[in-house]
């Protein structure tokens, strides 16, 4: 099953399950999704449930949030997360804070979703990871699926959740197919928010990543295994809440950790993981926690420069070997 089909089927099933759920965003209806995540949904559920919006992020995000305050369960698609910066005030000041400010009176059951992070050949304004930005905000939940199982289980959990969820997909993963068990295809399959998944067990070094970089870490682990380095790979799935316990348990086993992300290093997800390990498990560390991150530059267009700005499998291998 491809990640695209996993997301599409999750939306389809949740629209069918609960008539308070509706989808809105640019090109989600008649165009059937800029990346075809909403393919066929307008035909099946009609224009009140699958609403095409004009290109006005601040406005339609505010409308989506207002409708969630009033009891609906919108799934608000951003064609890419880059465009959500036009609407970030509504996500943070309106969606994330109102339950707290209203003393528990008004909750905001909404999912903000779309592709995040680097795409291919689209340069600086369309290639950026927002995981660390949103994960710093109390009141938001931030999820980042890697494979088809994650995509289905986390999106269905996000739609059923009573709080605002920032759902960070990856364009390059949309077309990738992953094997899934029959359980994953169950219409009530959900994954717990706030729990990481150990993708591969190992005893020498822990690799921590999310989204597309999980695949890179698994490939790096294969390469390292041939050289006798046994790597544990953790897929965070949930950036907020962050599953500190799973990270610490792994560190207690391997005593070494490398974080991998496409986003910039300063105040990145890796910075947070690194700080947490120092605060909570300093005595378990046999080496400094290392970060493999996107280079600290706006994304360039040329293919060779773009590759140089992003973590490659070889970079991960090098970082692990430097402390293994």
């Amino acid at each position, binding site marked *: 099953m491809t990640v695209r089909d996993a997301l599409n089927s999750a939306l389809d099933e949740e629209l069918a399950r609960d008539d308070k759920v509706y989808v809105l965003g640019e090109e989600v209806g008649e165009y059937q999704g800029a990346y075809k995540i909403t393919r066929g949904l307008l035909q099946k559920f009609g224009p009140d449930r699958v609403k095409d919006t004009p290109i006005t992020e601040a*406005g339609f995000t505010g409308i989506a949030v207002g409708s969630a305050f009033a009891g609906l369960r919108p799934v608000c698609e951003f064609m890419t997360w880059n465009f959500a910066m036009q609407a970030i005030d509504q996500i943070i000041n309106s969606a994330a804070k*109102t339950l707290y400010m209203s*003393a*528990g009176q008004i909750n905001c059951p909404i999912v903000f979703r779309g592709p995040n992070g680097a795409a291919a050949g689209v340069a600086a304004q369309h290639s950026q990871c927002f995981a660390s930005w949103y994960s710093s905000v109390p009141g938001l939940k931030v999820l980042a699926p890697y494979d088809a199982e994650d995509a289905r289980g986390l999106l269905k959990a996000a739609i059923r959740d*009573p*709080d605002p969820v920032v759902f960070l997909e990856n364009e390059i993963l949309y077309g990738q197919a992953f094997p899934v068990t029959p359980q994953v295809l169950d219409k009530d399959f959900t994954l717990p928010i706030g729990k990481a998944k150990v993708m591969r067990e190992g005893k020498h070094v822990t690799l921590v990543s999310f989204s597309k970089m999980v695949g890179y870490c698994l490939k790096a682990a294969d390469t390292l295994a041939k050289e006798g380095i046994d790597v544990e790979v953790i897929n965070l799935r949930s950036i907020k809440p962050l599953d500190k316990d799973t990270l610490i348990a792994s560190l207690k086993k391997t005593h070494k950790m490398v974080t991998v992300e496409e986003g910039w290093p300063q105040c990145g997800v890796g910075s947070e993981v690194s700080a947490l390990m120092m605060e909570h498990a300093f005595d378990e560390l046999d080496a400094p926690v290392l970060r493999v991150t996107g280079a600290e530059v706006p994304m360039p267009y040329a293919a060779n420069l773009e590759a140089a700005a992003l973590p490659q499998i070889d970079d991960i291998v090098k970082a692990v070997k430097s402390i293994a």
Partner: protein
Amino acid sequence: AAAPIKVEVMPYKVHRIDAPSNIVETNVAELTDFYKLMYKMRRMEIAADMMYKAKFIRGFCHLYDGQEAVLTGIEAAITKQDSIITSYRDHCQHVSRGGSVLSLMAELMGKKEGATRGLGGSMHIYNRAGNFYGGNGIVGAQIPLGAGIALAHKYRGEKNVCITMYGDGAANQGQKYEALNMAGLWNLPVIFVCENNHYGMGTAEWRAAKSPNFYTRGDYIPGIKVDGMDVLAVKNAVAFAKAYSLENGPIVMEMDTYRYHGHSMSDPGSTYRTRDEINAMRTERDPIERVKKLLLSNGVDAGDLKKIEKEVKKEVDEAVEAAKTGTAPPAHWLWKNMYMDPAGAAMRGVLPGQYVVPEFDPTYAK
């Protein structure tokens, strides 16, 4: 008291719609209710001003005195099943939607007895049960939110509107035009109420808006300009707008009004406008005096009005004193209601090792 009285109000100015009649029907009972509510709003805001100056209230505090007829007229034309959302100038909505003066005063003073338990303060007061959605601190952000609340009404097939209030300052925000466009495209039952008090903070409307005719600024969306200092003009126009909106979609209302206080407590309100202007408003257009005159000319005894004033004053004074004796929210309330389902999240305090799983507890029983 129920005998009909006909009053001629200032003719409405309109944009792309036929004006409703400017002959408004009322009666002594209704006018008395208006008088009571507006007088209460006025006393509340004056009390807030005094408590702020006496340092019982901190932070930002935006007062509504002068603008009472707008909200009072709106409430007279809609029901509690209709929704209201507004900016940070929200004290009076709390009371008009069913909240007590005590819970307002306690909130302003940051007490646990407050409307939002001391967590929201002056700018963030809500009443979900009364369909009041706050209390929003970011100028203009409440406008698309209001359109979204209207979308929910329509989605569920309810015959209700969302009154979306903003000032002449917010009327120039880009997201207002985004919300107008989508509300128009989708025929949302939203009434955009621009309370034009003529100054966005200290910037006069004509210095901020190329066209200060706010009732026409919806372009393709009809608009109506109302004397916002006349509660009867407001009531009549909002009833007209609600009927229109349920049938046809959005409408813009410009309420010509005036705030007596400065923008907020840090603004004496006198550097960008003249004392003469403020005094002229108070003597010639005051919304409470207007109702008082109507009541007196329709045979109500001045003593009866004095009685109302005394009762309201007493209620407000007692609320202020009771709020002062309230208690600060307990420290562990810091961690309540960040999430409805905290999903086991442990949120960090100031120091390493200080972790708390936030609790969903809208009752604040503990």
